[in-house]
């Protein structure tokens, strides 16, 4: 027990460093995933022919392979083709591309849940298809997607732990270092587990808050009571 307390007090700065890395890595990857994922969702719903096939292929590949495999291919495999990325770049690229595939499917679900009458009405008042999507469909889709997207955000936060395998100094990496130094793996990993739980908790609370703030009466998926 004293060792636990010793760990926590002595290594708080290290934990904070690791947490910072985990947080900004997750944040940037979520952003990358969003920037790539939303257009993919739109392409899949509204695109034709080969565009659709292409994006479906992308989603299947990145959902169908483990994140760890994708990470290793990007960090260890790409150099064989002449593309050498730093650890940070590799981490962001693989987390981002992976997240994009999942986010694309969540957005697709939310967009398709919106009644087709909404687009028809938007076009009936003179909006182009693009304006209809931008001003009528997406604002509603963003509210509908929050529960699923929160899932992805939380998932990515935890999945980001794999980057320690390419020596990124994240929370998980710190745990390993500390465990190695003091030969007390159980205390070290438990402490890190608690740290992750706390991070996820704060993230969940924040996302619930956002959901409530942007809520519009009547704009929910109907649930029977």
């Amino acid at each position, binding site marked *: 027990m004293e060792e636990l307390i010793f760990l926590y007090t002595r290594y708080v700065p290290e934990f904070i460093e690791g947490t910072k890395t985990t947080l900004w890595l997750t944040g940037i990857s979520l952003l990358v995933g969003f920037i790539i994922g939303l257009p993919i969702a739109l392409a899949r719903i509204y695109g034709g022919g080969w565009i659709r096939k292409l994006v479906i292929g992308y989603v299947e590949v990145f959902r169908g392979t483990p994140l760890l495999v994708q990470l290793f291919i990007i960090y260890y495999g790409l150099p064989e083709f002449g593309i050498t990325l730093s650890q940070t770049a590799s981490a962001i690229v693989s987390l981002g591309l992976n997240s994009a595939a999942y986010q694309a499917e969540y957005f697709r679900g939310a967009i398709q849940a919106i009644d087709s009458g909404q687009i028809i009405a938007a076009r009936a008042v003179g909006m*182009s298809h693009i304006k209809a999507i931008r001003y009528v469909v997406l604002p509603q889709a963003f509210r509908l997607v929050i529960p699923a997207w929160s899932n992805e955000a939380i998932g990515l936060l935890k999945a980001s732990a794999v980057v320690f395998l390419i020596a990124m100094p994240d929370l998980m990496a710190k745990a390993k270092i500390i465990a190695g130094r003091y030969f007390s793996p159980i205390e070290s990993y438990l402490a890190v587990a608690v740290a992750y739980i706390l991070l996820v908790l704060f993230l969940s609370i924040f996302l619930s808050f956002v959901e409530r703030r942007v809520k519009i009466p009547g704009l929910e998926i109907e649930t029977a009571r």
Partner: protein
Amino acid sequence: MKAPIIKAEGIYKAYGEVEVLKGVSLNVNESEVVVIIGPSGTGKSTLLRCLNLLIKPDRGRIWLNDIEISAPYFNSNRVREQVGMVFQDFNLFNHLTALDNISIALRKVLHMKVAEAKERSLQELNNVNLLDKKDLYPSQLSGGQKQRVAIARALALDPQVMLFDEPTSALDPELIGEVLEAMKTLAEKGMTMIVVTHEMGFAREVANRIIFMEHGNIVEEGSPNEMFLHPQILRTREFLWKITELYGKHENK
């Protein structure tokens, strides 16, 4: 003789094997109120949606004010600024208040300034007697209120023609009246209207011309008197008899 404000010639539309419109031709003059009646699934809605190019007919030509809007490279978005539409299911934008439902097209399509759009929207909302509901969301409005907001939304763009696709079919009987009143007022102001409806009372009172459609064709058309009192074609007579029997409450005249 002034040209008809809307002219449609030979409109043909099929979905795969199913022929929905089999060569429909139609002229509507300015300030005319044309009511289209007929059994469900006979192409009435499809015809309406062809007139504002929401649906592209497979064959046929359409003119708005002598401009051929069915021409291949014509900008169909501009057409819908001139031809407004009201739907059976209202289709109000769920994420916007009543006021914003009206102003969004003014701002994003006509590029009106925010203040001007707001003023215009308040005016239109007032015209349908819903000014006090301006900050409510569609889910907080009754069906009749939603439809009146939808009418205000379409009118805000100052269209030349208004299309109504069974505007009262999804409403409680008690709420139908307020919507029909709004439409009647609009007709009295001289708006050109094409209305698909089952409301025979409205047809008889407000329509200048009634068109009976079935199986993708116009079966018969004429003034309300001609159609209700002296229908020439058997099928028209059958349909009207059935409908007036069903909607007997409008027959107390």
